[in-house]
C-alpha cells in the first residue's frame, strides 16, 4: 500500500458507536491524493458506466500522467477507460467489451487497439466475475461452464481446461485464474466516518472491494450516521475494513452519472464521443475538461 504522507486519519467516530476496526483505518484523502496512491503499472478494477465510476479521480490520474496502468473492466470498460487510454495512461485492458453504450464504439480504445499500442485481453463477463470471486475467496481459480470452442478461450492461454474431479464421465470445465487487482477504484453516494461505503444494489462494487488489495473510493458525501447501524442500509454497505481511502467528490461520477443520484450528462457524453474520434478532438477535450484542476470542494 502506498499512501501519501500528508493524509490524516478519518476524524472521530459517531457518538455512541463502539465499532472498532483493526488498523489501518480508512484514510480520508483528496482527489489528487487518490491519484497519487495508485502507482504506475497498477492493476486497476473499474466498474462499467452504469454502476459507479470515479470520474473525478480518473481525471486526476490523467493529470498526474499515470502510465502503464492495467485496467480490468468489471465486466466492461466505457468512458473512463477510453479517456485513460487516449491520455496514454494504459498498457493493457482485460474486459468483456469496450463500449460507449448508446454513444457507439470507444474511439480511443479502437485507435490504440488497431495501432498495436494497447494489449487487449478479450474476456467474457462471467469470466471476469469468476476471477474476482476466486480472489475474494483466496483461492487460485474458479471453474466455469461455457467458453469451450470459442476464440475467446483460444486466445487466452492463461485460461485452462480442467476435468470435473467429481464426474465419472469426461466433463471439461474452464478454470479462470484469480484476478487480484492492486486497486479497486469507484464512486458511491456516501460513506460514514468509519469508512463504510454505501453502494445500494451495485454489488459488483462489493465484489471489486473484496478482491482488491486496496480499494479507493470517491463519494458524494461523508455522513455522520453509522451506515452499519440499520440493517436495511447495512445490506448495501461495504464495511470499512475493505476500504483503503475515501475522498469526497461532489458530482464525482460526472459526466456518466450515478444511478439513483443524478443522470448521465447526455449532451456532454455525445460531445466526448464525437471529439474522441480524432486525435485533435481528443486533445481538445483533454485540455478543456480534464487538465484544469477543479476548485477544492
Amino acid at each position, binding site marked *: 500500500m502506498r499512501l501519501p504522507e500528508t493524509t490524516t486519519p478519518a476524524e472521530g467516530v459517531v457518538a455512541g458507536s463502539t465499532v472498532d476496526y483493526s488498523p489501518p483505518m480508512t484514510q480520508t484523502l483528496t482527489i489528487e491524493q487518490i491519484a497519487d496512491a495508485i502507482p504506475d503499472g497498477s492493476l486497476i478494477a473499474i466498474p462499467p458506466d*452504469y454502476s459507479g465510476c470515479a470520474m473525478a479521480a480518473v481525471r486526476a490520474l490523467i493529470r498526474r500522467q499515470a502510465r502503464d496502468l492495467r485496467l480490468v473492466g468489471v465486466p*466492461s470498460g466505457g468512458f473512463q477507460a477510453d479517456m485513460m487510454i487516449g491520455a496514454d495512461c494504459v498498457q493493457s485492458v482485460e474486459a*468483456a467489451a469496450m463500449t460507449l*453504450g448508446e454513444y457507439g464504439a470507444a474511439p480511443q480504445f479502437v485507435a490504440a487497439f488497431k495501432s498495436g499500442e494497447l494489449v487487449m485481453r*478479450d474476456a467474457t*463477463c462471467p469470466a471476469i466475475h469468476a476471477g474476482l470471486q476466486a480472489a475474494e475467496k483466496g483461492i487460485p481459480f474458479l471453474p466455469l*461452464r461455457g467458453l469451450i470452442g470459442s476464440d475467446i478461450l483460444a486466445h487466452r492461454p492463461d485460461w485452462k481446461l480442467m476435468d470435473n474431479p467429481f464426474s465419472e464421465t469426461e466433463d*471439461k470445465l474452464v478454470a479462470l485464474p484469480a484476478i487480484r487487482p492492486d486497486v479497486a477504484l469507484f464512486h458511491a453516494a456516501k460513506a460514514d466516518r468509519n469508512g463504510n461505503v454505501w453502494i445500494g444494489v451495485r454489488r459488483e462494487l462489493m465484489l471489486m472491494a473484496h478482491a482488491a488489495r486496496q480499494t479507493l473510493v470517491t463519494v458524494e458525501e461523508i455522513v455522520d450516521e453509522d451506515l452499519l447501524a440499520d440493517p436495511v442500509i447495512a445490506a448495501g454497505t461495504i464495511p470499512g475494513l475493505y476500504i483503503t481511502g475515501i475522498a469526497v467528490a461532489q458530482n464525482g461520477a460526472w459526466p456518466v452519472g450515478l*444511478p439513483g443520484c443524478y443522470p448521465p450528462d447526455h449532451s456532454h457524453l455525445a460531445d466526448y464521443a464525437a471529439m474522441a474520434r480524432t486525435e485533435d478532438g481528443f486533445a481538445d477535450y483533454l485540455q478543456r475538461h480534464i487538465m484544469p484542476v477543479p476548485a477544492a470542494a
Partner: protein
Amino acid sequence: MSDVRREELLISVIADMLQDLNHVAVGALSPIPGAAALLARARSNGRLRVSLLGSQTHNPFTDGGKELFDCAAQGRIDAFFLSGGQIDGQANINLVGVGDYPSLDVRWNGSFGSTYLYFLIPRVILFREEHTPRVFVPEVDFISAPGVSEAGTYRTGGPHALVTGRCVFSFDKEQRRFRLASLHEGESVDSIREMTGFTFDHSEDVPATSLPDKDSLNLLRGRVADEIAETYPEFASRVFG
C-alpha cells in the same frame, strides 16, 4: 401491412417465440427484443417473468453484474437474445471484429456475456435487423460464441432462431444449419439467397411472416409502448409516437 411498422412486425415475431416460457432476460441496448419480451408478458396474464438489463423497474437483480450469469447456469432463464457483427451458417457469432485477430481491420465492442450465455440458455434468439452478405457470412472471422459444440461438451442452450429485417430462420441443431421459416413482405427465397452469405435450407413454399393481430397491436401500442419507454425513451417515441 400498411399500418404495421417494421419494428412492430419484428417485435411481434419475437414475442410469438416466447409464449410458453417462464423467464426471459434481455441484454443492454436491445429495444426490439425488450419490447417483444414485454409484449409476451402482457399476453401471458402475468405468468412470464421479464428481466430487462438497463431498466430500473423491470430489472429484478440484486446481486451485482454476476447474477444474470449465475441464473443462466442454473437454468433459471429460458430465453435470451444475442446478435453479431457477423453470423455464419453454423450460428457462430462474432462480436469482436473483422480480420485476423488480434490485427483486426474493424474492431467491435467485444463479446460481453455471449461466450457463456449461448451455452446455457435453452432458447437463444439471434436478432440482427441488417440482413446483408457482410453480416451473414459463410464463416465468421472470430468465434465469440459457437453455435454448436462437440459431443461431450456441457451445453444446455443454444440458437433457436435468427430474426432479421427480411425473414425468420429456424436453426436445426442436428443438421447444424438454418432453415428459412418465413419471409417478411416483399421478400422471396431468391432475394434472401442473394443477401445471405451462408447456405440454408427451405421448403418449396415458404410462408409469409405472420402479422400481429389487433389485440397484440393494441397491447403493443398502449401498455408495452409505455413500459419500454422507461428504458428506451427515444426508441419508444420514434416507433410508437
